[in-house]
């Protein structure tokens, strides 16, 4: 087990190091994140300015501020795509090099993503969270998050990561069939922004749609951890939601294994 981690951890750590290589990219990345979050923030504030009740879909204006920044940072951390990596590997044929090593391709990709995830927790999400917590206590007069809730939030986020990565692995298998998945990836991201709760809380949708969503894995990607942080789930339901996330992680993992078995036989290496 330790050997396992020593092997795969090197992929994560090298990925983290790679993220610091280009200075310009490093700073632009942070600026882009803030830009995205604030556009989103002002949009929602305009929406709230137009309502008289001060609450939409069970969210007060203050909670919406928290939701905006949280969902943005969480989805940024959790949704580290591996399908684009698979797509690139397939298109230029470098998948060959990954297959001649005594390494599991999916775990290799997963740990690379884990590296990116860890990097993104530090740059810059954790600082935004601290800022949010201060805002929450001073401006909204809400209590500081309890250690147990914080723990549940972190666990839930880790589960979200696995749900997304294993989902994206299945999606990435398409690259072996269609060769080019760049366009489909854009479509997928657009759909996920809506389905995972990144753009708007799922509780904003009509009840029927919410019902449908509850049978899909997508809310397990962003919405659940954010709602846990906001304390929107009463006691026992938190465990239920975590269980659901775990279920999807396992189910998508198994689906991925099945797909790989089917596809392994028909791999084509492009580019000679």
């Amino acid at each position: 087990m330790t050997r396992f981690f020593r092997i795969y951890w090197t992929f994560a750590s090298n990925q983290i190091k790679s993220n610091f290589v280009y200075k310009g990219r490093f700073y632009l990345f942070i600026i882009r994140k803030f830009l995205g979050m604030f556009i989103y923030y002002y949009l929602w504030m305009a929406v709230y300015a137009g309502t008289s009740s001060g609450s939409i879909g069970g969210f007060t204006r203050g909670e919406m501020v928290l939701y905006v920044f949280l969902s943005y940072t969480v989805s940024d951390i959790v949704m580290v795509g591996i399908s684009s990596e698979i797509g690139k590997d397939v298109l230029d044929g470098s998948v060959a090099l990954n297959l001649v090593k005594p390494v599991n391709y999916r775990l290799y990709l997963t740990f690379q993503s884990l590296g990116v995830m860890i990097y993104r927790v530090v740059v810059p999400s954790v600082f935004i969270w601290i800022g949010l917590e201060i805002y929450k206590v001073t401006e909204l007069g809400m209590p500081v998050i309890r250690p147990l809730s914080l723990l549940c939030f972190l666990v839930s986020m880790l589960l979200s990561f696995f749900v997304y990565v294993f989902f994206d692995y299945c999606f990435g298998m398409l690259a072996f069939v269609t060769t080019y998945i760049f366009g489909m990836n854009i479509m997928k991201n657009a759909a996920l922004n809506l389905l995972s709760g990144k753009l708007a809380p799922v509780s904003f949708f009509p009840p029927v749609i919410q019902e449908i969503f509850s049978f899909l894995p997508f809310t397990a990607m962003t919405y659940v951890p954010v709602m846990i942080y906001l304390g929107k789930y009463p006691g026992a339901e938190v465990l239920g939601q975590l269980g659901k996330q775990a279920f999807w992680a396992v189910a998508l993992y198994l689906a991925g294994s099945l797909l790989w078995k089917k596809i392994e036989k028909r791999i084509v290496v492009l580019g000679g």
Partner: protein
Amino acid sequence: MDGNVIELRNVRKEFVTAKHYPGWSGAVKGLFSGEKEKKVAVDDISFGIKEGEIVGYIGSNGAGKSTTIKMMSGILTPTSGSCMVNGLEPYRNRKKNAKNIGVVFGQRTQLWWDLPLSETYTVLKEIYGVSDGDYAERMNFFEDVLELGEFMHNTVRTLSLGQRMRADLAAALLHNPKVLFLDEPTIGLDVVVKDRIRLAIREINETYHTTVILTTHDLNDIEELCRRIIIIDAGKKIYDSTLSQLKKDYGFRCSITFEWKDMPDEAQTRMLRDMGGNIGYRESDKGAKVYFSKKEISVAQVIGKVMGIVEVKDIQIKETELTDIVKDIYQNSAGMGV
């Protein structure tokens, strides 16, 4: 067969691709047609390779060399036939097989692009579970034969092609594999780096008894490294023998270039043109080129004949080069309609 590290039996690989049509209308047509095309990349190939051999695996572009390598390294699954490497079926035991083999694809790199070169080796050390002692020993070895030290801490993307190739070769060898697949390891390299790479391959083969399979278009690679060559064309094996046998089979053609002291007169020229014994004769600026088969007449006899007719200033004897032989074999196989 016993003692074979690699054993291929009637291996065949087909690829199915969407059919494409030429031209603008063809590009649009391709969007709507679901037609598939079947291409046979490797067709019924069998051979065995013994431990410690260096085998040159050659063929023209698209002959199926890389596809064979990819099947032996477990990336591709043969359509039919069996392929065993170290007693394992590579594509069924990909991870296990990977521990026994090292692969270099000349056109790709397995080095970590954005990081210093040394990081790649620490990753590989973990992946293959190389012990600290072995790691140090092998790094010393690479330092000696590949001279990696000078750029060990440079970022991979800043390395020259020659440096990168040397580093890639070392990366494939870090775990001391039993079998080394080299797919065009000298592509695009200058003479000095080519020499260094060849030297390293030979040294590794001698020190560790590594079995090496080498595809290349540079026949000097073959001449300097391989005792045995396998030639394939259009997916079929067309020649498999030792290099010396190949030369015996095909290398009997010889040419001698003469430079005259004084230009021969008409009578002499007539005699030269008509020396008999299947000797070809072609005049050039200040001399002539004479072709013959060593099976029929010896070099000394030819020179004697010519010098009996005309006074000679300079002589250059040229044995058939491997390039010519291989060109011959390719063309013959095409001519036979294989």
